[in-house]
C-alpha cells in the first residue's frame, strides 16, 4: 500500500520537497550539535531543560489524547479513527525524536532498555511511548488494509486499540510523574499538574485533529464528517475549559503569574473556548478552524513558558532568574523533527486518501 | 676483562639504586594521609609477570573481560580479579597497561582491524601518556 504515497499531484510534491528540505537542514544542525555538544543550544547549568523538553511534552500530550477518539466509539467518529491513529503515531515519533535530540549521548539510547531502572518514570515513559508508537501504527495500517479490501478489520486490531488506550494513560501519568519527581521545583510539585496535563493534552490533540481533517477536506475532498468534527470540538472545548480553570487556580500560587506570556496564553485560550461554544462557529468553517488554531497556540505557549520557565527558572538559581533563549541550531533541529513528523503523517494520510478514493471512484 | 667486571659492578650498583628508589617510593606511598579509622592502607603489590588469562583467550575476549571488570568494579565494588592459577590482579586498565607497556600495544591491532574503542574518550590512552 505504501507505494500510494509515491504518487501525487504537484502540490503534494512541493509540500514533500519542502518538508525534506527542512529535515535536511535539521539534520545538518543536529550534526553540529553532535560534534560540538549541547553547548550549541541555549541551555546551561541553570536551565538544563529547554525547547526540546517543551516540544516533547506537547507532542506526548497530542499523541496520547487521541485515544479520546477510540474511547468514544460513536458512529460519527468511525471515519476519523484511522486519521487519529496515524496522528498519534506521528506525534509519538516526534516526541521520541525530541527525547533523542535532548540527549548528550544518543548513541547510548538503548541503555534505557539494557539497564532499565524500574523506579524511574523516564524509563516507563520511554517504554510506553515506543509501545504506543508501535500499536497505533500497526492498528492504523491493519484498519486501512481492511478498508482497502472492503472487509471489517480483524479482531486483534480492537485489542491493539485497547492496549494503546492503556499505554496513552501510562504516558500521561509518567510525564506528570517525571515533572513531579523533581522535589525542589515547587511549581511542578503540585497534585493539579497531572490532571492539567491530561486536560491540556486532550484539548490540544482534539483541536489539532480537527485542523487536520479540515485540511484533508480542503485539499483532497475526503471528508471525515462534520458531525465527527463537532464531537471532537465538544471534547476539545470541555478539556480546554478544564485546563483554563486549573491554570487559573495555579496562577494564584506565588510567582506563577509573573511568567511571561502566560496571561496572553490564558486569554487566547479563553477566547478560543468561548468561540467553540458559540453556535455561529459551527456554521463558519474559517471561524471554527481559527478557534482550534488559537487553542493549540495557547496550549503551546502555556507549555513552553508556563511549565518550563515557571517550573525551572524561578526556584533553582535562588533569586537569580536566568533567561533561556533557544539558539538557531535548536530551532532548526526542532523544525526538522516537526517536518519529519509531518512527512510521516502526510505519507500515511496520502495512503488513506488513495484507498478512500479507490472506493469513491 | 677488567672492563667487563667494572660494567657488571656498575650494573649491580644501578640495580641496587633502582631497588632503593622503589622501596623509597613504597614508603612514601604509605606516608600519605590515611583514614583515621580501620582498615588502614595495606596496598599489596601485583605480580604482573603472570597473565590473567591465556593469550589466545585474551586476543578474542579482552573487550568482554574489560567490560566485565568495569561493571563489577563500578557497580559492585568487586575489584580483585583472581586468575585461574590463583594470582590476584586489580581490575583496572592500568593493570593491563602496566605490563603491556608498549605505547602502541592497543593502537597497532585496533588500527589494523579498524576498531575504534571508546575507552580513551575518558581514560588516558597510552598514546597520550607523558
Amino acid at each position, binding site marked *: 500500500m505504501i507505494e500510494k504515497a509515491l504518487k501525487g499531484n504537484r502540490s503534494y510534491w512541493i509540500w514533500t520537497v519542502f518538508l525534506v528540505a527542512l529535515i535536511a537542514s535539521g539534520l545538518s544542525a543536529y550534526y553540529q550539535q553532535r560534534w560540538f*555538544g549541547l553547548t550549541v543550544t541555549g541551555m546551561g547549568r541553570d536551565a538544563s531543560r529547554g525547547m526540546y523538553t517543551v516540544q516533547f511534552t506537547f507532542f506526548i500530550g497530542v499523541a496520547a489524547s487521541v485515544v479520546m477518539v477510540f474511547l468514544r466509539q460513536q458512529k460519527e467518529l468511525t471515519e476519523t479513527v484511522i486519521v487519529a491513529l496515524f496522528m498519534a503515531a506521528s506525534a509519538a515519533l516526534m516526541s521520541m525524536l525530541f527525547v533523542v535530540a535532548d540527549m*548528550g549521548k544518543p548513541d547510548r539510547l538503548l541503555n534505557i532498555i539494557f539497564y532499565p531502572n524500574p523506579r524511574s518514570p*523516564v524509563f516507563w515513559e520511554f517504554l510506553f511511548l515506543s509501545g504506543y508508537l508501535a500499536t497505533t501504527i500497526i492498528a492504523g495500517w491493519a484498519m486501512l488494509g481492511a478498508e482497502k479490501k472492503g472487509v471489517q478489520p480483524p479482531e486483534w486490531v480492537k485489542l491493539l486499540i485497547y492496549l494503546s488506550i492503556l499505554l496513552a494513560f501510562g504516558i500521561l501519568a509518567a510525564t506528570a510523574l517525571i515533572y513531579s519527581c523533581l522535589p525542589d521545583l515547587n511549581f511542578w510539585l503540585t497534585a493539579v499538574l497531572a490532571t492539567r496535563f491530561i486536560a491540556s493534552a486532550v484539548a490540544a490533540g482534539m483541536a489539532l485533529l480537527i485542523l487536520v481533517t479540515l485540511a484533508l477536506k480542503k485539499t483532497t475532498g475526503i471528508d471525515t464528517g462534520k458531525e465527527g468534527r463537532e464531537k471532537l470540538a465538544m471534547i476539545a472545548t470541555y478539556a480546554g475549559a478544564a485546563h483554563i480553570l486549573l491554570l487559573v487556580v495555579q496562577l494564584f500560587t506565588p510567582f506563577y503569574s509573573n511568567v511571561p506570556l502566560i496571561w496572553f496564553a490564558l486569554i487566547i485560550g479563553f477566547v478560543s473556548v468561548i468561540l467553540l461554544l458559540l453556535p455561529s462557529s459551527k456554521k463558519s468553517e474559517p471561524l471554527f478552524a481559527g478557534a482550534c488554531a488559537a487553542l493549540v497556540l495557547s496550549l503551546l505557549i502555556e507549555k513552553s513558558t508556563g511549565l518550563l520557565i515557571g517550573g525551572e527558572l524561578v526556584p533553582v538559581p535562588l533569586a537569580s532568574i536566568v533567561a533561556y533563549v533557544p539558539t538557531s541550531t535548536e530551532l532548526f533541529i526542532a523544525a526538522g523533527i516537526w517536518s519529519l513528523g509531518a512527512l510521516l503523517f502526510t505519507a500515511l494520510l496520502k495512503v488513506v486518501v488513495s484507498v478512500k478514493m479507490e472506493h469513491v471512484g | 676483562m677488567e672492563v667487563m667486571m667494572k660494567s657488571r659492578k656498575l650494573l649491580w650498583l644501578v640495580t641496587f639504586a633502582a631497588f632503593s628508589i622503589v622501596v623509597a617510593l613504597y614508603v612514601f606511598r604509605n606516608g600519605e594521609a590515611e583514614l583515621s579509622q580501620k582498615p588502614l592502607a595495606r596496598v599489596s603489590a*601485583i605480580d604482573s609477570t603472570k597473565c590473567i588469562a591465556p593469550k589466545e583467550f585474551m586476543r578474542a575476549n579482552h573487550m568482554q573481560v574489560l567490560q566485565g571488570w568495569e561493571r563489577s568494579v563500578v557497580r559492585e565494588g568487586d575489584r580483585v580479579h583472581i586468575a585461574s592459577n590463583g594470582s590476584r590482579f*586489580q581490575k583496572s586498565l592500568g593493570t593491563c597497561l602496566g605490563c603491556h607497556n608498549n605505547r602502541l600495544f592497543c593502537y597497532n591491532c585496533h588500527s589494523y582491524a579498524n576498531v575504534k574503542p571508546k575507552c580513551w574518550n575518558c581514560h588516558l590512552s597510552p598514546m597520550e601518556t*607523558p
Partner: protein
Amino acid sequence: MMNEQRREFIKKTTLGVFAGLGAASGLVPAFSLEKTALPVWDEKPVPGKIRWGMLIDTRKCKEDCQQCIAACHHEHNVPAFKNRREEIRWIWKNSYRNVFPTADIAGVSKEIQNRTFISLCNHCADSPCTQICPTGATFKRWDGIVEIDYHRCIGCRFCMPACPYGSLSFNWEDPRTEIVDPVTAYPTRQQGVVEKCNFCSNRLVKGLLPACVEACPEQALVFGDLNDPRSDIRMLLESNVTMQRKPELGTKPSVFYII
C-alpha cells in the same frame, strides 16, 4: 666503539631492570597510568555496612581559602569552564542564603550570613537523582556513595533538576579542552555526560581520605562512617548541633554542617 656499545648496553639493561622492578611492584609502570596495586578493600563489599558521611565545621572555614576546591578539582580532572552556563563543579562555596534557603534566617547573625559555606553532593540516603535516572547510571553504592557510572550515562539530564542542591554538572562540550593541570591517575569525563562529586571513592579504595578533607588547612572537614558509632564523625555529630541542607525534602543527606 667498544665504549659506546657498552654504554648502550648498560643503559638498556638498567632501564630494563628498573622498568621490570617498577612494573613488578606496581609502583612505576613504564608510563605512569592509574596505579596498579591491590586496593585496601579487596574483598567484595557488603551492601549497607558502611555509610560514608562528612561533617563541615563552617566556623573553621576561611572565607578566601579555596584549597579544598583546588585539590578536588585537580584530583578529578574537573574542567575549569569560566562561563556560568557551562560551569562544572564538584565542590564549591556559596552563601548561607543559597546553601540553606529554607532555613530560618531570623535568628542568624550577620557574621553567619556573610560566611561562605562549602557545598558538594550530599550523597543522600534517599536520593532523587538516582530515582529519576532511567538507566541507573546515577546509582547508590554499597557504601552510601551516590556515584555516576560514566560508562552508562546517556546524558538525559533529568537528574539535574531532580537534585535540590544543584550538585550535578553536565558536560555541554568536550571537557578535555579546559582541564588546567591534568592528572594521569584519574580519568576525565567526555562530552555529553553528567558528573559530580564521588566522595573520592577513588581515594577511599586506596585507604586515603577524600582530597578536600586532606587539603583543608583548618581541618574543618571530617569524614567517616556514619554507621560506625565509634567513628570520629559520629562522636562529633553527637556532641554538636548540626544542620543538613533542606531536610524537609526528606532526602536524608550524608553531609552535615556545624554552624
